[in-house]
């Protein structure tokens, strides 16, 4: 097996040389599945190798000490640990029984200090980000700020000066806690309380890294802020913590991406993202999740939206072994809006259990959920959603559309739409479809010259187009490329 992995790594190191790849793949046909994940290389790993495994109070104290945190944060972390230990694993959703919490490394420090230029990063890490195309996006001004997290901490960070001048804050959460404690005392854990669920509790106990964003009143950040999360070490636990506050009438689009090397044993990514959307503000949060298929991705994301505000989650789940993620919007002010566009791909060995949660707590609030999932090669895609309308939320409206596409007959899809309506004066719509790629559709495209996997990819791209359309162009292209990679070797 280790020999196999070494060969797989050789393939991945040479991803720029199709000749070499083809030869290695021809010699080792069993590697074909591995080769299709493009981001599976790993860097040398001294920091990770020496990191402690398992979790107890000393691990939590150690993290807090290293960060010289205020006392209240350490207390909160310890509370998180208690909840984590006490709370049972969820009995619904994906199978989490194989996660070995004692084998996970909860904190890995890869560099001593955050870099302000890519050149200041250790070469390994810099190369990794170059290959992921992050500095390039920054140079081309496709993003107006970048935060790059490697293992437990943000190693590079930059924001455009003009935004800083307007009072926009975009920095890693650890630094923000030091420099802007007032926000944290007020908001940290206010949207997702420490004991919300087992994995939010774990995150609270061992959180590290993530982004803090503050957009002042009336400021519109026209070009997205980008965060990139990379796990390098095996059995890593990454627990970033993100807090976004959009003050009245402001706008920001935050985009995150994530990848990891392919390993034999599992890693855990368990983030908490809290968002506060003030009156008439709008936040769009886009995720392109492409973890390798040995990562458990168990993330809690929630926004509260004041009067007239809008929260939009665009949630793309392509990678990971298991994902459980249901971005939520609590509509607390009149005319607040929530929207989730979710797209999930479940390939061999993957279970994507995704969806969204909309809670209407004020009159005339509206929400919509559009979920599209594709399952192939025995993968499983589940939609799980909750729409809750509280008694006082008169005149509220919600619509849910979930469409599943099955590429073959061995894959699975299921839907769990929960509805909890405690008010009569509401408008609801729910549509769900399951479709199979039809033989006639494939034949039509193939009779126009497209190879079977190209035809399949075209059908799948068409299926998720309503969501790809919402992405900035580079990300839509990236998503399409990922689909093509996913679909390669999916047929025949």
């Amino acid at each position, binding site marked *: 097996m280790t020999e196999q992995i070494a060969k797989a790594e050789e393939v991945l190191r040479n991803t720029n040389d199709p000749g070499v790849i083809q030869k290695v793949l021809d010699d080792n046909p069993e590697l074909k599945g591995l080769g299709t994940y493009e981001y599976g290389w790993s860097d040398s790993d001294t920091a990770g190798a020496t990191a402690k495994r398992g979790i107890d109070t000393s691990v939590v104290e150690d993290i807090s000490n290293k960060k010289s945190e205020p006392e209240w944060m350490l207390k909160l972390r310890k509370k998180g640990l208690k909840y984590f230990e006490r709370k049972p694993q969820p009995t619904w959703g994906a199978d989490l029984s194989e996660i070995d919490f004692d084998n996970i490394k909860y904190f890995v420090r890869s560099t001593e200090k955050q870099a302000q230029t890519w050149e200041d990063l250790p070469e390994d890490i810099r190369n990794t980000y170059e290959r992921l195309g992050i500095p390039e996006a920054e140079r081309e001004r496709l993003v107006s700020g970048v935060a790059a997290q490697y293992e437990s901490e943000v190693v590079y960070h930059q924001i455009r000066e003009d935004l800083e001048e307007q009072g926009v804050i975009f920095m890693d959460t650890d630094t923000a806690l030091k420099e802007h404690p007032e926000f944290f005392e007020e908001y940290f854990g206010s949207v997702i309380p420490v004991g919300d669920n087992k994995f939010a509790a774990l995150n609270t106990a061992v959180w590290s890294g993530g982004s803090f964003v503050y957009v002042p009143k009336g400021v519109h950040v026209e070009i997205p802020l980008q965060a990139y999360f990379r796990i390098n070490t095996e059995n890593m636990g990454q627990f970033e913590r993100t807090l976004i506050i959009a003050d009245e009438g402001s706008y920001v689009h935050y985009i995150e991406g994530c990848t990891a090397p392919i390993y034999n044993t599992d890693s855990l990514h368990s983030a908490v993202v809290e968002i506060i959307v003030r009156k008439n503000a709008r936040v769009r949060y886009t995720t392109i999740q492409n973890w390798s298929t040995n990562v458990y991705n168990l993330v809690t994301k929630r926004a509260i939206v004041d009067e007239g505000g809008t929260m939009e989650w665009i949630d793309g789940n392509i990678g990971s072994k298991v994902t459980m993620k249901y971005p939520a919007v609590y509509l607390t002010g009149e005319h607040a809006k929530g929207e989730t566009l979710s797209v999930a791909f479940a390939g061999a060995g993957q279970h994507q259990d995704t969806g969204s949660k909309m809670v209407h707590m004020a009159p005339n609030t509206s929400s919509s959920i559009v979920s599209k999932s594709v399952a192939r090669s025995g993968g499983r895609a589940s939609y799980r959603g909750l729409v809750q309308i509280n008694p006082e939320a008169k005149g509220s409206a919600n619509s849910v559309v979930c469409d599943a596409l099955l590429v073959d007959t061995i894959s699975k899809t299921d839907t769990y739409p929960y509805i909890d309506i405690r008010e009569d004066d509401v408008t609801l719509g729910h549509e769900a479809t399951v479709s199979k790629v*039809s*033989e*006639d*559709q494939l*034949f*039509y*495209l*193939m*009779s*126009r*010259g*497209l*190879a*079977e996997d*190209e*035809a399949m990819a*075209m*059908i799948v*791209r*068409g*299926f*998720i*187009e*309503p969501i790809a359309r919402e992405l900035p162009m580079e990300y839509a292209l990236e998503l399409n490329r990922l689909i093509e990679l996913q679909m390669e070797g999916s047929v025949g």
Partner: protein
Amino acid sequence: MSTLEIKDLHVSIETDQGTKDILKGVSLTINSGEIHAIMGPNGSGKSTLASTIAGHPRYDVTKGEILLDGEDVLEMGADERAQAGLFLAMQYPVEVPGVTMTNFLRTAKTAIEGEAPKLRTWTKEVKDAMEKLRIDADFANRNVNEGFSGGEKKRVEILQLELFKPKFAILDETDSGLDIDALRVVSEGVNRAHEDNGMGTLLITHYTRILNYIKPSFVHVFVDGKVAEQGGPELADELEANGYDRFLTPAAAAV
């Protein structure tokens, strides 16, 4: 000069009731530039022949051969047949949601030619072809066949025929569902492909009206999975006048 040869073709399909034989020994040879019309009653196997030539996986060839310039077509997948120069204008073109015509046409052209067409000349070529077929420019941005009317779908099939420039085209009831003007512009499109590229055509139809525009040199009467009779254009007129009665076996006529 190319040749498409169909030799003693037997085809069956798997149905819930078991295997069903549909084609029972079809032989037909088409050369570049020739137009062959096939006429025959409903259910006689015309679309089955068309789909089998194009490589639909539902149809099992139990006997016989299809050769394109001597090459074994049955060995090829549907995509390879398209790349080799075969084109099927389908009786029921399929919708592909979320994929624009522009994207589809360019992707297909690239697949057929093995390289991407030059963007500027291609865009113009598509635009011109659409104009000639009187397809509104909006269609470029619409999803493939999605919500198209019956006649619009047929026009778009011929648009593809003009753009992909096949060696041989099979038109499966392309004339059905076309209005009078559309019948003419579509026929003109097919005739252009003949004159410009020497395309050979197998034209499946129920009506002689299209034969006023696209003039076949051969007419085949297709009955019960076989070619029952071959002749020149006059055979079509005879069918129009007398129907298929004289070709039907007594048993089949009673159905």
